């Protein structure tokens, strides 16, 4: 029996194993929602399309499965844009489905028409405007294949209303044939041997781990490499959780707000083994002084990342999990104990620290969260100081337990992403570490969390400032706090008005009880921690500076 385009979309999503989608209806996507009404596909109605994109993204990062979001044409589609760009920058498999005006109205500035494939061209791995229902199932198959393989990324499918309504025979293709898309997963054997040899010869190696290790699921291979070589490991923000930060060889994060031990080690190493990382400016600082004495091995699935920002001695294109496993096989061990001693000394001399005097400290709250959850929670963050403190003062030991907008730095990401993460991992404690500024950017999703009773905990580190910008103004702009003194509502009352639990904390001794109460509540909770207003994130590398020249900490 022929099926409508809308039915085909839903059947195709089910063929792909999709069990949750996030969306918001509108005029040109009604046929899809009509078919959804009869299906058992679980849909979460958000309160703003941006929330749908971030929730799908959080779901994807927490589970490793593709996230799916849906919006109508025009403003619905443009509201997804920030979420799509966020996913693109952090290589998150995301499928965005958007309604579109019927084909015969395309290009006529019709009501709620926007060229969303044009708009999202630079922020999607690929996108499609489906004009013929016969291409629909094949397009969805391709979209999922592209989004989830190679270096993952978002794919948008624009669906004109008539394509959703028209009927055809449904036949979900088994295979994908794309002449121009064949990711290289096997690393070059010769280069792998060279890499193993170079590692064996190095005296002061450092492994620099990015989000690619998390995406590839290569944590076991990475762990083995580090153990075999006793090579210290530093991660980027995106790489957090790929290597246990409780391990003696863990240096913590590197870069602008990295640890001194990590930045010193990278600056002094003779071999940098970059794994699934992309030498972002927040990591390298002044590029000429980044790892100046080191040979560089770069392992990445995306050939375009190799040689983009720094010169590489041994490039290896491939799936980092496979490549690391092969390197481990061929390894000639290097166990230079001087280097390990030096690392241990740096770590002992320069731990992350903060001034404990004064009012409630945000860093203290993060430490308490780590204590209460025993490091087992999924931590999602907003962007700014809250994000950096969450990265610094909680020890991540498992992949996919730290979820944050790294590349785009999207304020307002954390709360909807936490909702998506909790839906994907219902047994985990999911905590959004937020600033008072960021939380207000998608605060409306409280209604979503309450309606579906998704028990996420929002921890607001409330300093009534746009804290990171204020910190920059303090340090680089002579304390001229232009437009960063931001007032918020009474967050406890807001939470309660939405039907969530609200708690306010102003004293250190109240922190742990509040966290325990929130976890026990099994419903959405907002904790408003009123913290020291002018606390700074340290250490800090001034923008454009060499990473071993750090301020504070």
């Amino acid at each position, binding site marked *: 029996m022929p099926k409508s385009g809308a039915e085909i979309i839903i059947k195709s999503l089910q063929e792909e194993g999709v069990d949750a989608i996030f969306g918001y209806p509108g005029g040109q996507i009604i046929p899809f929602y009509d078919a959804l009404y009869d299906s058992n596909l679980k849909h979460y109605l958000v309160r703003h399309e941006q929330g749908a994109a971030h929730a799908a993204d959080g779901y994807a990062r927490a589970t490793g499965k593709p996230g799916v979001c849906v919006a109508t044409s025009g403003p619905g589609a443009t509201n997804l844009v920030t979420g799509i760009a966020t996913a693109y920058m952090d290589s998150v498999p995301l499928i965005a489905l958007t309604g579109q005006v019927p084909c015969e109205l395309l290009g006529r500035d019709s009501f709620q028409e926007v060229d969303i494939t*044009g708009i999202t*061209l*630079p922020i999607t791995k690929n996108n499609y*405007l489906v004009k013929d229902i016969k291409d629909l199932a094949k397009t969805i198959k391709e979209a999922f294949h*592209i989004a989830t393989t190679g270096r993952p990324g978002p794919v948008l499918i624009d669906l004109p209303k008539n394509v959703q309504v028209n009927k055809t025979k449904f036949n979900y293709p088994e295979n994908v044939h794309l*002449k*121009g898309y064949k990711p290289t997963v096997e690393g070059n054997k010769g280069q792998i041997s060279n890499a193993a040899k170079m590692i064996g010869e190095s005296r002061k190696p450092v492994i620099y781990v990015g989000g690619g290790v998390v995406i590839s699921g290569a944590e076991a291979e990475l762990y083995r490499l580090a153990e075999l070589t006793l090579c210290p490991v530093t991660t980027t923000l995106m790489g957090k959780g790929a290597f246990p930060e409780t391990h003696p060889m863990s240096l913590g994060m590197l870069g602008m707000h990295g640890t001194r031990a990590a930045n010193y080690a990278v600056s002094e190493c003779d071999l940098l083994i970059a794994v699934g990382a992309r030498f972002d400016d927040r990591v390298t600082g002044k590029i000429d002084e980044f790892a100046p004495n080191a040979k560089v091995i770069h392992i990445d699935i995306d050939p375009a990342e*190799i040689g983009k920002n720094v010169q590489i001695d041994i490039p290896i294109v491939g799936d980092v999990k496979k490549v690391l496993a092969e390197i481990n096989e061929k390894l000639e061990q290097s166990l230079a104990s001087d280097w390990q001693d030096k690392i241990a000394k740096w770590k002992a001399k320069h731990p992350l620290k903060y001034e404990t005097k004064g009012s409630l400290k945000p860093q203290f709250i993060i430490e308490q969260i780590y204590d209460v959850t025993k490091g087992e929670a999924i931590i999602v963050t907003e962007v700014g100081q809250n994000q950096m403190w969450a990265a610094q003062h909680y020890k991540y030991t498992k992949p996919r337990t730290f979820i944050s907008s790294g590349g785009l730095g999207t304020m307002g990401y954390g709360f909807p992403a936490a909702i998506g993460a909790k839906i994907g991992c219902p047994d985990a404690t999911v905590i959004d570490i937020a600033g008072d500024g960021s939380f207000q950017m998608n605060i409306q999703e409280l209604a979503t969390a309450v309606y579906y009773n998704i028990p996420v905990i929002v921890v607001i580190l409330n300093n009534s400032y746009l804290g990171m910008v204020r910190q920059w103004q303090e340090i680089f702009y002579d304390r001229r706090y232009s437009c960063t003194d931001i007032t918020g509502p009474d967050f406890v009352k807001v939470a309660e008005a939405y039907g969530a639990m609200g708690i306010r904390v102003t004293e250190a001794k109240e922190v742990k009880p509040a966290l325990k109460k929130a976890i026990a509540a099994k419903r959405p909770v907002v904790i408003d921690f009123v913290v020291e207003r002018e606390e700074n994130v340290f250490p800090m590398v001034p923008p454009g500076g060499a990473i071993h020249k750090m301020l504070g900490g």
Partner: protein
Amino acid sequence: MRHILAVLVENNPGVLTRVAGLFSRRGYNIDSLTVGRTESENISRMTIVVEGDDLVLEQVTKQLHKLIDVIKIHDITSEQYVDRELVLVKVGAEPTTRGEIMQIVDIFRARIVDIGRRTLIIECTGDENKIDAVIESLKPFGIKELVRTGKVAMLRGQKFTSINENREDD
């Protein structure tokens, strides 16, 4: 240095936008870009002339490869190839100068394809140097209008830029 890239792409809507957008977004300079169909249905071929050092070219090539619609890229600059460009020039032609113009046209083996009361349209095909030379020669007569196609190029002999590279020689 200038490089000539032969790029095979899926003949999908928007493929030109994707390629052109990539160049502008990442700040690469296109000298010229031509696109047209090939011997295979559904596959188009672009000839892109791009300015940049080896590092830039490596990035251009890798970034182009990331586009799903791009099937194959061949930097033919350092190989033996034939390249051609076509130009149409509408040049001022008074009765007193027509003879001279026609001599120039003959020398360059160009053609006159339209005669107006005070103008001629001249068509010329050739490599870039020849096109530049013919334009230079016509300048004194007053160029009213000029259009160039941009370069198309093909490898000489037994080398191919196609998706069936293993085909037998004829």
